[in-house]
């Protein structure tokens, strides 16, 4: 009996991350191509109700593991539980989101299982010899590697926004099983003391569909208000180049680029960003790139689908007004 593809669902306080639904949607296609089931694995506390949700996006089976010790994510406890359920369930592939949790969990889990891991995957296809074949950026997207893994299960963390979320169908039901956590004592070492989620009405940078970013030409921290005003009209996240972050105008967590976040939104609007190779490495896979820059020779125009040669302080507020008329 083939044991198909598993997706590890990431949930925060009972809310499923978008990337997990992207993986259920795409994973279902892969599983169907293989003639195998798609299984969603959900760890946490008070999460049984999420089974119907993942079923509506295409999961054939759902494995629920509930435990007080799984309420907050910790590397040890999650690795312990997943290692056991994966060994018992013997899937052919396990997919996770390349999120803060996915990046922390997957390598540890891979080593415990004694298998390979394809990280930060931006493309995958079914492969006869190796089950799945992955495409992943190296050198922050300046090149791509085509990667296969030799052992089962095939493990991958997939970059958010790589795949679309399917239309949910509430009539779809999944076969739900519940496992006990049975966490090894040796794996319970970390205690989560505090979780601070920054209050923001804007989407998380790596998951955002639209990002509007500012660079050196922003001239100071106060001017990011111009970008925020625009972002709030179109539901965008605000990002920044390294120059702006290193000048202390905006927090580091907003940095896009080789030494910051790597993003792949539908629309990326670069304002006053010259387009250094390190920045392009962080946003080069965006579907549509817009550049607004005073310097007609700025490198960013070489990758932009649409460019405006002009002062961002003139253009962006006017653009915001235009967007207001539309949405």
């Amino acid at each position: 009996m083939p044991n198909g593809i598993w997706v590890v669902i990431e949930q925060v306080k009972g809310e499923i991350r978008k990337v997990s639904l992207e993986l259920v949607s795409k994973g279902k296609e892969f599983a169907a191509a293989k003639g195998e089931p798609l299984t969603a694995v959900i760890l946490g506390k008070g999460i049984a109700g999420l089974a119907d949700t993942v079923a509506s996006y295409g999961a054939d089976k759902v494995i629920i593991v509930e435990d007080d010790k799984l309420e907050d994510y910790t590397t040890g406890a999650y690795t312990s539980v997943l290692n056991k359920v994966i060994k018992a369930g013997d899937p052919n592939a396990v997919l996770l989101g390349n999120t803060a949790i996915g990046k922390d969990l997957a390598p540890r889990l891979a080593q415990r299982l004694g298998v390979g891991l394809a990280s930060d995957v931006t493309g995958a296809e079914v492969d006869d010899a190796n089950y799945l074949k992955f495409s992943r950026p190296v050198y922050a997207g300046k090149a791509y590697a085509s990667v296969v893994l030799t052992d089962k299960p095939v493990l991958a963390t997939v970059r958010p926004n790589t795949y679309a979320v399917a239309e949910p169908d509430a009539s779809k039901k999944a076969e739900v099983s519940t496992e006990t956590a049975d966490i090894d004592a040796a794996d319970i070492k970390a205690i989560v003391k505090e979780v601070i989620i920054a209050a923001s009405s804007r989407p998380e940078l790596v998951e955002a569909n639209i990002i509007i970013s500012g660079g050196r030409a922003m001239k100071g921290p106060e001017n990011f208000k111009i970008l925020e005003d625009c972002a709030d009209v179109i539901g965008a996240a605000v990002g920044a180049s390294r120059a702006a972050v290193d000048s202390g105008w905006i927090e580091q967590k907003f940095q896009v680029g080789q030494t910051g976040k790597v993003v792949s939104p539908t629309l990326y609007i670069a304002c006053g960003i010259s387009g250094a190779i390190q920045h392009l490495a962080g946003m080069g896979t965006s579907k549509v790139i817009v550049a607004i820059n005073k310097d007609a020779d700025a490198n960013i125009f070489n990758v932009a689908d649409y460019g405006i040669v002009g002062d961002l302080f003139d253009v962006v507020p006017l653009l915001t007004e235009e967007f207001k008329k539309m949405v």
Partner: protein
Amino acid sequence: MNFNLTEDHNMIRDMVRSFAETELAPGIEERDEEEHFGIEFWPKAAELGLAGVTFPEEYNGIGADYISYAITVEELSRVDPSFGVTISAHSSLGANPINMFGTPAQKEKYLSKLASGEHMGAFGLTESNAGTDASGTKTTAVKNADGDYVVNGSKVFITNGYYADTYVITAQMDKEKGNKGIAAFILEKGTPGFSFGKKEKKMGIRSSATYELVFEDVVIPKENLLAEEGQGFKVAMQTLDYGRIGIASQALGIAQGAFENALKYSQERIQFGQPISNFQVTQFKLADMAMKIDAARLLVYRAAFVASEHKVPVSYYAAAAKCIASEVANEVAREAVQIYGGYGYTREYPVERFLRDAKITEIYEGTSEVQRMVVSSKVLKDGPVL
């Protein structure tokens, strides 16, 4: 023969380049525009050891060779030629005469603070009527009843003036003897009668400090006589011999900085539907710039090598390196502006600043004409250089 730099040299280059790019590059246009001396960068530079590269460890120096020093000044000047000359004037002119000619007590008192960067140094030789011709020195030193020296006169164009804590100055003690009547002294800032005259408004290196020094009955204690009475000219000439390695390195950095900007720009600037680097006229400009810089660099590093070896006098090697490197800096900076075209002439882009900064390297610490005098006297005396 080995043209490879050591791992230490490469690490020093990386370190100084990082310092220059992260600390000096931001705000460089404003500092140039406002003639603001970058004193705020001094403590960090000192902490990194940039103030005492070639000086002995026993006096808080680093004990590195002159190539390390050349690389340091080159990398600073690649980004900020004004800060490059600040370090060069401090090290080569302010501290090195004390290192070369000072007594152990003078080194302990002054060099140890200069090499650590706790103090900044400067050098006062040039006067309004004594430029290339040092024998025209009008500043006088007269021995008083205590055996101390009373100095009167003034010095002009003094790099690091006002900001430096310690000044090595020259003064005439016996006009009859001409150059052989000159003595050199270590003078502390704050000594009564020692003040600063006007700050020069300059064409280039505008964020370096250039001041007039004024001496009105300044009493310099006898223990601050450097070398002996009558040896001041020798102190100055030998100081300049080594100092020229610093200016040659500054010129090299200017050429490199201008070239890198022009190279990048030529690949980005689109005319007739393609980057201008596709046109042979630009390619040949870039080739000439690259070759000239390469030639200059070999001369500068060779002079530094000779200075480290201490086997033969450095004067010819330093003069040749300084003369060629300073001329290359001017040629390369001029071509860089040309590659930028109209934009290159504006202050939006850095190449016009490099061009303005380059000019002084053909003038200070011996004009190109003085360097040719040094070179020609060598070849006329010893025959062709091999």
